[in-house]
């Protein structure tokens, strides 16, 4: 047997081994393979990442490792071994012992993975008694211990809680403790942290890393996020449409990928270094092929820039490039040799604050307060926020879920009514909301939503969807409306053949393009983008971001760009606002924000965000997320409960002052500016 990765002792029995495994959907007539000829091994104590776009077969592979069939996809050839045991030879009860006992999985969505009607304790006891045969007192003790292992505090309360009473981060920890309860040799994380905030994600991955090192548990981490791969794994397998295209150590694959697909994926990530912003992101042309229409040769060939006739004729072998490093590409050596990254085209203008000549404020938000009723409590989602967005400017707003950024967005576009404060748009105060806003203003403020599937009515064709604003605002004479729709479609790189299609016939990326076309159709002055690319795959994200920014520059529109992804916000924004718990922590240009002085929260965010191509400072102080405080109306620093640089009573008792008097830069903190300035930078660019 060949030891593929450079980690671990090759003579040790691997925790997981796939030998030439093909997994396929079997229906009466046809069998369509989901995973083809997969070969990989994970040594004890090794953490391997499995990276690929949605639909590439990542989860199918993971389910096969547990002897399970995802959506009825079965292993039709090859061998899956867990700690040296071929799992196809195992019978029902033995398989049951394998699952949870030897291989355990932490699924993506904690809300649907825990039974909502059973207390956490009950669910934990079940696993412990099943796999460890515990009863009574020892059972309760090891349950508490299992929860403490995953850094949960207030264990007795959590044992008594129902899933809905816990936060997403807490639930994911509970799932992790459930998975670890059977002391498995292999832990599979199936996008386990994808739905979480970056800081929570960082905490949980750190925890998994610790458990992995302490107990020599192997980890298979399924993700589409290359940033967390670098930080957390030793080896990585890249999977494209069911084929493992590249497998090797993290350093090898992420620093100089040998397969064009891996390189393209890496290039799609917005770069963190400050000189490259304002440039187009490279994209991967085309889309994943349809299962009914498989290319004869290399599956990636139709989208590959390097592809030649050879590629489309025969399927390339997964072959050894260097010891422990395999790639499925005829031109792997050439790809390695051309270490230069493909050059990035520049956009029309260099994006910088200076490109916005003579800032004219378009949107001014003053002391805005948004509250909503949650049961009997009133929650303050936005707490006296003030900022302005200039004409033609992209203002990024970044923060964790629940920080109030979506409430802020909904308030600006007039979906909810503010409790206090002012919104001034183009010199005119916006009072009331929705229909009560004056007609021209409705036209000039538009929104792009996070989820393209639910932001376009499934009952309307693309044409109807784009036509409506033209009719409503009477922008174009009746005869020219159709032409205008075609023009709009072309502006988002879709052809007129999309006119008669219904949303279900479009992919997520295409739908988001239609949504963008709709937002631009009324020729607005301001578009609020609420996480416009978060639900899209990385390769599609890059294309949509390019498009958004191109249209923004062409039409001189202002954007309020909301995202939890610091990389994306960094890439698009002229200025960034960091929000925490309904308040602004810090505001400034990207280049100001990414170097000290940092707000302690910005520092934590920067440290937590997974990035490719940068080295991070080793020691980063982190606060304890369980000290998280809910928003209160009493004057205090909202971040004080979690702040690793907490000063004392002053943070709890008074609103922090702005460290800058300069109107465009703000930093609200009690710590003296001198001290903040002397912080060590978090990021350091890797020189390639």
């Amino acid at each position, binding site marked *: 047997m060949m030891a593929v990765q450079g980690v671990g002792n090759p003579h040790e029995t691997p925790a997981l081994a796939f030998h030439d495994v093909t997994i396929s959907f079997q229906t009466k007539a046809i069998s369509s393979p989901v995973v083809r000829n997969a070969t990989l091994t994970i040594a004890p104590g090794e953490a391997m990442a499995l990276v690929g776009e949605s639909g590439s077969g990542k989860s199918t592979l993971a389910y096969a490792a547990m002897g399970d069939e995802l959506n009825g996809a079965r292993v039709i050839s090859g061998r899956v071994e867990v700690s040296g045991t071929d799992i196809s030879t195992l019978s029902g009860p033995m398989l049951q012992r394998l699952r949870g006992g030897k291989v355990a999985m932490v699924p993506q969505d904690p809300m649907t993975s825990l039974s909502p009607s059973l207390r956490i304790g009950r669910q934990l006891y079940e696993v412990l008694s099943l796999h460890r045969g515990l009863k009574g007192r020892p059972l309760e003790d090891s349950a508490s211990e299992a929860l403490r292992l995953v850094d949960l505090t207030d264990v007795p309360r959590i044992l008594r809680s129902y899933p809905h009473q816990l936060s997403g981060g807490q639930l994911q920890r509970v799932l992790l403790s459930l998975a670890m309860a059977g002391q498995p040799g292999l832990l599979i994380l199936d996008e386990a942290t994808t739905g979480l905030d970056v800081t929570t994600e960082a905490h949980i991955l750190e925890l998994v890393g610790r458990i992995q090192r302490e107990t020599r548990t192997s980890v298979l981490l399924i993700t589409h996020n290359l940033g967390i791969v670098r930080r957390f794994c030793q080896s990585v397998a890249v999977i494209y449409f069911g084929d493992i295209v590249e497998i090797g150590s993290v350093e090898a694959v992420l620093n100089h990928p040998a397969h064009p697909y891996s390189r393209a994926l890496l290039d799609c990530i917005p770069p963190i270094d400050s000189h490259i912003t304002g440039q187009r992101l490279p994209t991967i042309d085309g889309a994943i092929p349809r299962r009914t229409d498989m290319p004869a040769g290399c599956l990636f060939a139709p989208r590959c820039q390097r592809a030649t006739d050879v590629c489309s004729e025969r399927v390339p072998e997964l072959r050894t490039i260097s010891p422990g490093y395999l790639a499925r590409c005829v031109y792997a050596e050439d790809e390695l040799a051309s270490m230069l990254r493909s050059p990035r085209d520049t956009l029309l203008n260099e994006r910088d604050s200076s490109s916005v000549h003579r800032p004219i404020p378009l949107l001014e938000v003053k002391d805005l307060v948004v509250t909503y009723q949650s049961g009997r409590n009133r929650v303050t989602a936005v707490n006296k926020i003030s900022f302005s967005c200039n004409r033609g400017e992209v203002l990024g707003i970044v923060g964790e879920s629940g920080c109030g950024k979506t409430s802020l967005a909904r308030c600006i576009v007039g979906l909810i009514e503010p409790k206090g404060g002012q919104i001034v748009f183009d010199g005119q105060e916006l009072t009331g909301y929705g229909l009560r806003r004056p007609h021209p203003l*409705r036209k000039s403020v538009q929104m792009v939503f996070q989820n393209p599937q*639910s932001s376009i*009515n499934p009952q309307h064709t693309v044409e109807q969807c784009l036509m409506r604003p033209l009719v409503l605002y009477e922008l174009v004479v009746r005869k020219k409306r159709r032409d205008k729709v075609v023009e709009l479609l072309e502006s988002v790189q879709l052809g007129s053949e999309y006119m008669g299609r219904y949303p279900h016939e479009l992919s997520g990326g295409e739908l988001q393009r239609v949504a963008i076309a709709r937002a631009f159709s009324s020729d607005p002055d301001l578009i609020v983008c609420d996480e416009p690319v978060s639900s899209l795959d990385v390769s599609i994200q890059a294309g949509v971001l390019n498009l958004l920014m191109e249209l923004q520059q062409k039409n001189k529109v202002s954007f309020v760009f909301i995202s939890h992804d610091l990389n994306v916000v960094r890439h698009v924004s002229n200025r960034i606002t960091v929000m925490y718990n309904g308040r602004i922590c810090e505001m400034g240009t990207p280049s100001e924000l990414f170097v000290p002085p940092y707000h302690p929260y910005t520092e934590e965010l920067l440290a937590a965000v997974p990035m490719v191509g940068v080295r991070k400072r080793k020691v980063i102080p982190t606060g304890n997320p369980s000290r998280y405080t809910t928003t209160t109306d009493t004057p205090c620093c909202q971040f004080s409960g979690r702040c690793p640089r907490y000063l004392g009573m002053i943070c709890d008792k008074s609103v922090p002052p702005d460290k800058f008097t300069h109107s465009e830069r703000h930093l609200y903190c009690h710590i003296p500016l001198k001290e903040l300035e002397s912080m060590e930078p978090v990021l350091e660019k890797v020189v390639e």
Partner: protein
Amino acid sequence: MKNLTSQQVTTLLIGSGIAAFFTLIAIFGPWIAPGDAETMHFTHLKQGPSSEFLLGTDRFGRDVLSRLIIGTRTTIVIAASSTALATVLGTAIGLISAYFGGRVDGVVMRLNDVFIAFPTLVFAMFVIGVLGPGIVNGILVIALIFTSSIARVVRSAALGVVILEYVDAARIRGETILFILCKEVLPNLYPTIIVEVCIRFGFAILVTASLSYIGLGPPPPMPDWGTMASEGRSLMLTNPWPVFAPCIAIVLLVVGINFLGDGLRVLLVARRTGHLGSTA
């Protein structure tokens, strides 16, 4: 159609076939019927099927087949118009309740609860007692009874739609509430509404029969299926045809309408979402 399985196409065809059959009878009944529905043949009381009377005669010697055919119109008119009225009212109430939520929703839905809790026939007897019996009043009563249940179904389906971003997008555009409800929300509810309408249509026929049974239906001697069944009930053991014939007709029509509804729903869902929903 191409997205449907052959079973679904069959369902749709059978459903529309049955519906068309009864509609034709309702329209052309007087010309199709072999005899007069109200003529009493005193020499042929309580007879079984014969060549002269294909479905026999009832206790007054009236031709069951002719009564059945003539009664189709009354029955379908009452059931269809009451269901239509209830659908329009119920959909409007349900949409408004779901869209505005909060206090509006609370008040409307509590009223609705009161309505549903009230025994149907007691309510019907009360209203008809005040307004007097007759086809129009019968339609009104049945429509009122069904409005609340349709409103409830529409509301719960609409609740899942009004929170979606395309409704937000319409509000940001500054669309009127009428436009949002009719053009953005309503089309997404058609599959649900169709199923509900078909169920209500079936019940409407049964309620008409119940009303006729307690004497609050269309005034005699005008035949309708419910009245026929209730009239023949006391002699059912010796003379089953006057009861069986309308009962079989009711079952056939109700099943047919439900087939049709199911087929239409699948057709709608398939066209707009690309996959076949198993339930509404």
